[in-house]
């Protein structure tokens, strides 16, 4: 459900010391005259300059709906529901997560709770990454890798402290995990705010604009549980029934390893294009109007996750093509 009364929520994530608080204070001081609520974790860095700062517990719980990876942030449901009762309208809400937080439960909260989904919308996940330390953090901490995988925008911070060749290497590493995020180079999180706020990155309309930054994949990763991404394109229309069966089963059985999915689908005998995006097993999908006149119809499908090579994704997708 999308309507103009929903308050946009920006999630700031990033590993310890990457510069989240710097970015947060930048947003709060530069956006004069706007009313923000900032939700911080209780163990976070201090010194946030805003009227409305709410302490959160980062309490994650599992939904009792038979979906094993369907974890949500209970404290966020409570806090967002409370904020929506306020008499004064908020321009935006910013959620700062701890450095070791998994962004999935935050995103899933917006799929699972009706009240939250009606009154607020997840605008984008902004990941702040430390250009100096990211490469080693990714190796040592799966949280750092997940934060990159979930980012719609990645602020590659502290670039003044790395050599240009090292910077390229870090960027390649990021693109291998997440070829769809926009990478912005910064020092001290200096970035025009319109590049990180009001992006509407989780709207289905935005999926139509996804043009992955394809990179020659060399498949030489060191660990089997590295986060990688794959994408498929097909000019042959897909069979809707076959696709639903394959994709539904895939999310049911492998949803824990699939972090994010996005796609635009061209089904045989359907005049509308179908758009979807998901986080683990949860999905938001809808027909998105007719295919534009004179533009080639094609299906595009993107996966970010772990152990993707074990899922026979290419074969599964090929089998969905209509005869």
């Amino acid at each position, binding site marked *: 459900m999308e309507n103009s009364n929903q308050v946009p929520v920006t999630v700031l994530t990033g590993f310890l010391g990457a510069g989240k608080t710097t970015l947060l204070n930048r947003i709060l001081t530069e956006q004069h005259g706007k009313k923000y609520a900032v939700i911080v974790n209780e163990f976070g860095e201090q010194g946030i300059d805003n009227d409305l700062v709410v*302490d959160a517990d980062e309490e994650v*719980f599992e*939904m*009792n709906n038979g979906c094993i990876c369907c974890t949500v942030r209970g404290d966020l449901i*409570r806090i967002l529901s409370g*904020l929506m*009762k306020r008499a004064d309208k908020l321009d935006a809400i910013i959620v700062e997560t701890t450095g070791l937080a998994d962004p999935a439960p935050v995103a899933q909260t917006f799929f699972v*709770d009706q009240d939250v989904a009606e009154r607020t919308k997840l605008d984008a996940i902004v990941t702040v990454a430390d250009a100096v330390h990211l490469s080693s953090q990714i190796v040592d901490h799966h949280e750092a890798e997940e934060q990159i995988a979930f980012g719609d925008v990645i602020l590659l911070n502290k670039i003044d402290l790395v050599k240009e060749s090292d910077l390229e290497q870090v960027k390649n590493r990021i693109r291998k995990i997440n070829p769809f995020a926009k990478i912005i180079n910064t020092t001290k999180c200096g970035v025009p705010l319109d590049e990180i706020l009001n992006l509407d990155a989780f709207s289905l309309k935005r999926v139509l604009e996804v043009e992955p930054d394809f990179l020659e994949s060399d498949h030489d990763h060191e660990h089997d549980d590295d986060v990688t991404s794959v994408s498929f394109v097909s000019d042959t229309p897909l069979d809707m029934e076959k696709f639903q069966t394959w994709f539904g089963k895939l999310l049911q059985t492998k949803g824990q390893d699939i972090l994010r999915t996005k796609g635009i689908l061209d089904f045989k005998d359907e005049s509308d294009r179908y758009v979807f995006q998901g986080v683990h097993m949860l999905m938001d999908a809808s027909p998105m109007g007719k295919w534009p006149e004179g533009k080639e119809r094609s299906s595009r499908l993107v996966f970010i996750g772990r152990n993707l090579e074990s899922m026979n994704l290419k074969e599964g997708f090929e089998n969905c093509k209509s005869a």
Partner: protein
Amino acid sequence: MTADVDQFPELDKTKFEQRGTEFKLKIPVTNAVSIGNSIAVGFGDGTVRIFFSGQSSEPIKAHDGVVLCMSTDGDNILTGGDDGRFLKISLKGEITEITNFGSRWVDHVTAHNGNLVCSSGKVVYYWDKNKKVPKSLDHDSTIGGLAFDAKGRRLAVARYGGVTVWKKDYSNKWKSTKLDWKGSHNKVSFSPDGQYLVTSMQENQIHCWRLKDKIDFAMSGYGSKIKSFGFVGDSKYLATSGAIDAICWPFDGDGPMGRSPICLPYLANKLVTYVEPFPNENAIFSGLNEGSVFLSQIENTNNTIIIRSFTGSEVSAIAVTEDRSHVLIGDMGGNILWTSIWDEEKK
């Protein structure tokens, strides 16, 4: 939830609206509690107003943010807010601060016989009426709701994974019993006869424990979260919101297991968001997500009357005065109706 007001035709006022008093305050109503024949209302700007005999008091500046929760203790109103304060407010509007947690919200408040209780995060604080310092009762997860039983002997605390029931033993020590069921439990209540404990869950379900043998079961099939429920009469029915109909589960005899609920239908595609039992009657007030409110007899589905018509805002509070003569209705758009319930000739 919002609705486009222009889509709806101008409606005739109901007789209750005609003889009642309407207030258009444009501030979300978060809570309402009756206290004698007055009704105290909490708002989304932190104020509390006391309504009596169709008149509103001046707004009492209680909290900085939102009045998150409300209860009563004798002649006093208890409120908790997102400014971290737990307050006691007299009917004259005098405020006493019981405690202040700063940036931690006071999520739930309740009281019994002068003993005051609030929760903030994972901790319940219990002020014995004879003591200044509260007793802290710790839990592993955030608290979704609090409730005393009718006699005030047991305190139920809803949380993730079930309910913890606290009771003082003969030596005045707190003892807890855990009733576990996976998932997030929010509002909690004992049945007035003390035999059952029910919770509303994040997962669009009511969960119920029969306390004598700890048998538990779920009541499901709801299309949305159950934000409001209440026992009707002396535990004859449990009325619930969360569906297009008001769903009333039978709790007489052997309870609801294996029995069907009575479904009271209202408007197609409009969700019931608030239910308030009418004291001493097998009847409930049902408030919808577009502002209208109905009074229905549970055992006679043909006997439903409209109290208030469409306002465009979700009904968020209904309270009946102690003498059962008047009802107050409030919604998220700040529309309040105070009206007499009975027609003059019946009085």
